[in-house]
């Protein structure tokens, strides 16, 4: 770098970005890592080995992640295959699935399952009336069922994309050589789309490891890692950081190991995926068609269940934890908007500010990384990807421990909630920004500069407008995910700063399902309204960066 390079704004902005990332991402992570070794007297890792409950939590989490990954794959891959290759009744609904999971927060899903199959659930009580006792939905049964029906969508999306790129000619070639259709599929297509499937299953694995909402609501007597971290962090007099840090570090290490594996698979897959024309979907009729439509329909129905349930629950009267189905009321909604509107206001405020900061930061930083690379930009790139390996709970623990006091005391402020939101969604914004920037040739900027426009002005006048569609879609997606964020904010929030998911979580904890439904319904609306406005009025393509 020479003197003239330092006269441009980019090196300074890079340094600033790296500084911010260092303080707000690297420092909390290192703080947690070091705390795990510097136990009072004994290293946290030694304590861990002797702690049965924590070991069980780790073991259970890994088992749960494996099982859910397996089930998600068993649902997601066949569904993807039939919807990519065949036409049948109700196919449109199945292609809408990605949007459904996008808008239903996990905490709402968990709540819904409880309202149906929990101790006071509709079905439970109905069957009890006939003397049939269902097994408790709390524990493995509930965890596996509810998680599988959320996470299969990631496998579904990944597989559909891979099949779309797969050249049907390869398959036809195999058939023309005398292989039967099903065998040719297994032999030719599977190896080609396998990397994509594997990558999405590993993603599911990490999401299960990091899952907090469902784990804590449905887990009950099954100890799980993220719940254990949360409990260690909020336990009465949790001044001892050692145990929570050690558990948090364990979570980070598991996720990092899986992400590393994922990277290698993706790197390999890039060469294996054949670009070509996708196959034209074949119509499915008769028995097969009915079968496919029916099973697809069941999956969709189960995915949609939360929406229907909370919509009904929000207007149903209740006495304590017991819902009086069929008795309608507006009391629950009145509470959300009139009696206790705090969570609604907070959610909109925090998520709005976080979305704004997140989009601005990730746009600028991805610009630096892609277009103005210098000595520090590779580090910016790495550090900004770190949050991928941090579950919300781990991030919450890190922020809470690092900024409790000392040079930057943020505990008990709204800032720390916004900070948690921004950090959690940053890798997503970065990836989105980088993808679009790679498609903008350098010559566009050079043209602007050669016409006499200084670098910063060029960025604002030429690059930014070109990034706008992708930035808008990133903003929408960031909004939807921050509004429903629970695990990190639950750790760092303080009294009076409850958000909608936090409020729902607390209401579920107290068994007040009707109120929870009302808040849940409003939460879904808060998520959906900007999506609908953006896609219909401003024609924002939600997947512009793809």
């Amino acid at each position, binding site marked *: 770098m020479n*003197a003239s390079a330092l006269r441009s704004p980019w090196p300074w902005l890079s340094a600033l970005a790296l500084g911010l990332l260092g303080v707000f991402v690297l420092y909390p992570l290192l703080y947690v890592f070091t705390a795990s070794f510097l136990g009072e007297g004994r290293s946290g890792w030694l304590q861990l080995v002797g702690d049965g409950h924590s070991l069980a939590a780790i073991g259970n989490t890994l088992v749960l992640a494996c099982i859910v990954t397996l089930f998600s794959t068993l649902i997601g891959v066949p569904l993807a295959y039939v919807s990519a290759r065949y036409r049948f009744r109700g196919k449109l609904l199945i292609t809408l699935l990605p949007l459904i999971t996008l808008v239903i927060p996990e905490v709402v899903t968990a709540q819904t399952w409880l309202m149906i199959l929990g101790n006071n659930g509709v079905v439970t009580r109905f069957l009890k009336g006939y003397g049939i006792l269902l097994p408790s939905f709390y524990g493995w049964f509930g965890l596996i069922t509810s998680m599988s029906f959320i996470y299969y969508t990631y496998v579904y999306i990944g597989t559909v994309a891979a099949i779309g790129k797969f050249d049907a000619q390869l398959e036809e070639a195999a058939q023309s050589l005398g292989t039967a259709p099903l065998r040719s599929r297994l032999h030719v297509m599977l190896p080609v789309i396998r990397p994509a499937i594997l990558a999405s299953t590993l993603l599911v694995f990490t999401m299960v490891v990091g899952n907090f909402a469902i784990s804590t609501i449905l887990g009950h007597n099954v100890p799980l890692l993220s719940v254990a971290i949360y409990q260690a962090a909020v336990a009465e007099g949790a001044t001892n950081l050692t145990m929570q840090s050690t558990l948090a570090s364990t979570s980070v290490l598991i996720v990092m190991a899986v992400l590393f594996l994922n990277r290698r698979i993706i790197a390999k897959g890039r060469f294996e995926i054949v670009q070509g024309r996708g196959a034209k979907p074949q119509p499915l009729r008769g028995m097969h068609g009915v079968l496919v439509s029916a099973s697809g329909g069941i999956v969709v129905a189960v995915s949609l269940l939360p929406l229907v349930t909370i919509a009904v629950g929000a207007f149903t009267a209740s006495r304590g934890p017991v819902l009086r189905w069929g008795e309608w009321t507006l009391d629950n909604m009145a509470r959300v908007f009139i009696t206790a509107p705090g969570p609604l206001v907070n959610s909109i405020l925090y998520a709005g500010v976080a979305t704004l900061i997140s989009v601005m930061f990730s746009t600028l930083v991805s610009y630096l990384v892609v277009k103005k690379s210098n000595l520090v930009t590779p580090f910016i790139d790495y550090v900004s990807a770190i949050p991928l390996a941090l579950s919300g709970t781990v991030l919450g623990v890190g922020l809470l421990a690092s900024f409790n006091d000392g040079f930057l005391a943020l505990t008990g402020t709204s800032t720390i909630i916004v900070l948690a939101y921004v950090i959690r969604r940053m890798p997503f914004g970065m990836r989105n920004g980088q993808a679009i920037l790679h498609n903008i040739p350098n010559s566009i900027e*050079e*043209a602007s500069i*050669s*016409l*006499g*426009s*200084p670098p910063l002005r060029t960025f604002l*006048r030429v690059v930014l*407008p070109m990034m706008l569609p992708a930035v808008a879609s990133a903003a929408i997606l960031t909004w939807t995910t921050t509004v429903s964020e629970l695990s990190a904010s639950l750790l760092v929030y303080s009294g009076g700063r409850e958000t909608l998911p936090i409020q729902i979580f607390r209401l579920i904890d107290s068994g007040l399902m009707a109120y929870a439904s009302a808040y849940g319904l409003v939460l879904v609306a808060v998520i959906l309204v900007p999506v609908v406005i953006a896609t219909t009025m401003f024609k924002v393509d939600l997947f512009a960066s793809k």
Partner: protein
Amino acid sequence: MGIAISNLSVRYGAETVISGLSLDIPEGCFFTLLGPSGCGKTTLLRTIAGFAPASGGQIRFGGRNVTELPPHKRAIGMVFQDYALFPDKTVAENVAYGLRARGEKGEGAARKVKAALDRVGLGHVLSRHPAALSGGQRQRVALARALVIKPQVLLMDEPLSNLDAKLRVQIRETIIELQREANITTVFVTHDQEEALSMSDLIGVMNRGKVEQLGTPHEIYATPRTGYVADFVGAANRTEVPVRAAASGRVEVDVAGSRLLATDSLNGPAERGLLVLRPEDLKISATVVSGLQSLPAVVRGRQYLGSRTSYSVECAGGLVLNAEMHGAGHDAFQPGASVHLGFDPAAARVIRS
């Protein structure tokens, strides 16, 4: 405003792409950088523009040292291979962009934009977006955009390489006209020798980060100073030969067992040299043609090309030369035929090997 480059070096990391390059481009000159892929043409152009920093040496625009000046202050006009039009702006906005950056707005700017687009025949597409233009139209918008700001120097990096052959010739003419009109010093990068020869006042033939020969199109073609230039610009038969000095700018060379005369371009005494013969300067005939020196040869191969025929002929000692015949009966010689290969001493040059 002329461009003076002295002792310029450009490095990418550890790799030196341009080293110790000096070049003088007079004011109003249409200068072409010609060279093979990877020789550093784009790098040199981008260093002149200021996008690739020089690691040593100096660049002056009309006496003013601009080496340390950031590109947006160099008052250059640039035309890119991929046009680099702003896709979200209309044609008029694209052209107005440089004027706005100079604080020119309103009525006056709009008039200039219209005039610039009229000049390239695109006054009717002002409010269209670049996506709705053909490749040739985009290229002309890019040209108008670069010229409307009245730059001191115009820099173009293979601006015609994305166009089809017919269009290329057309836009070539537009570029030349506009350049002459504005009398603007222009650096034009290409690896197409026909483009270079037909458009330029001066050509610099580049090889591995150096300007190997600087000269007018005629000088470059007719009197290449190195074997590399001879071969890169036009085709040339090259063979190493022993040399003996002869009278008045001529040398005697031994070729395929014959002793012949050639033009001395050795720049000093030498024992051996490189004999350069253009295929179109070799005449094939059944009998010896008076007034030309000749070599006996046998036709080995023949390529009929419509307006001409390209032969490969073998002389004594296995030396194979290419010869091109034009005019009536240019395809008359059959493979296997014994012929005579005639040429004028003025058309045969001996350069340093």
